[in-house]
């Protein structure tokens, strides 16, 4: 039973959630705000993966579960699959999305050649805001994998906007 709501609803809600946690609930405590946002993502990911795997048999190994995240799960969330999956075969996976949907509305700041310290600090603030928006999807991935029985740590890398890489480190 699918429902259609406009995409701007989810974009607005996510932006507002990050803004509320960073500027109101935990103003001046970005680490706490980040943890809360990631925890919300964890819950969401947990419940979504429950729903999306209802009719499937269990995954045989970690790689199958990661592939599920890259293909079906990502498709349900973002209408596309992960563009590139890399692994070191020792528990670390890098998922690259070349055009991460939730970041498409963010400006890409080019680093200035000779930045004044003020420009650089503004840029640093922008980078912090951008990274705040990534705690939610990292939490979603961590929650989804945890529901599949795979405890892990997830971080994001946006050195190459609008591409975004998620690094999953499976806990032994």
């Amino acid at each position, binding site marked *: 039973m699918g429902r259609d*709501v*406009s995409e701007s609803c989810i974009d607005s809600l996510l932006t*507002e959630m990050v803004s509320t946690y960073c500027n109101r609930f935990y103003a001046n405590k970005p680490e706490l705000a980040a943890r809360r946002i990631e925890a919300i993502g964890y819950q969401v990911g947990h419940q979504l993966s429950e729903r999306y795997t209802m009719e499937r048999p269990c995954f045989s190994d970690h790689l199958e579960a990661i592939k599920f995240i890259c293909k079906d799960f990502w498709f349900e969330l973002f209408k596309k699959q992960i563009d590139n999956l890399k692994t070191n075969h020792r528990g670390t996976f890098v998922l690259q999305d070349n055009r991460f949907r939730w970041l498409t509305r963010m400006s890409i700041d080019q680093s200035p050649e000779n930045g004044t310290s003020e420009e650089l600090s503004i840029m640093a603030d922008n980078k912090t805001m951008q990274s705040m928006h990534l705690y939610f999807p990292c939490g979603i991935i961590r929650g989804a994998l945890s529901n599949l029985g795979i405890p892990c740590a997830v971080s994001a890398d946006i050195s190459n906007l609008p591409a975004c890489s998620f690094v999953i480190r499976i806990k032994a």
Partner: protein
Amino acid sequence: MGYNIGIRLIDEFLAKSNVSRCVDFKETAEMIAKVGFKMFLGVTASVMNWDADGTCCSIVLEDNPLVDFVELPDTCQGLYYCNILSGVIRGALEMVAMKTEVTWIRDMLRGDDAYELQVKLLKQVPEEYPYKDDE
């Protein structure tokens, strides 16, 4: 939170719906219920219970996508889960020069039979232009 979302959502609404200026508050309420809700949440609402002045009405939602998978646990019995919607409407209307108060009258998560929002127009704030005509 809803207020902050509403003040931006109104721009998207006006850009996409291409409607002309509403003549009065009654038309505004119909716009929100029929066009706005449809555009963003995919459902239509109805407007009823107008008061004598035409400044207060109810918007009734039979169907509310926000609560599809939601049940309020015992610890949250006093929660207005959909209160973000009231903020969105209030924020959006404020951007088009109307100060309103939006409250929930009926909420299915709390045991009622429908979702009913009361929208009350408090004040219409005429737009102020920073430029004088003769300068």
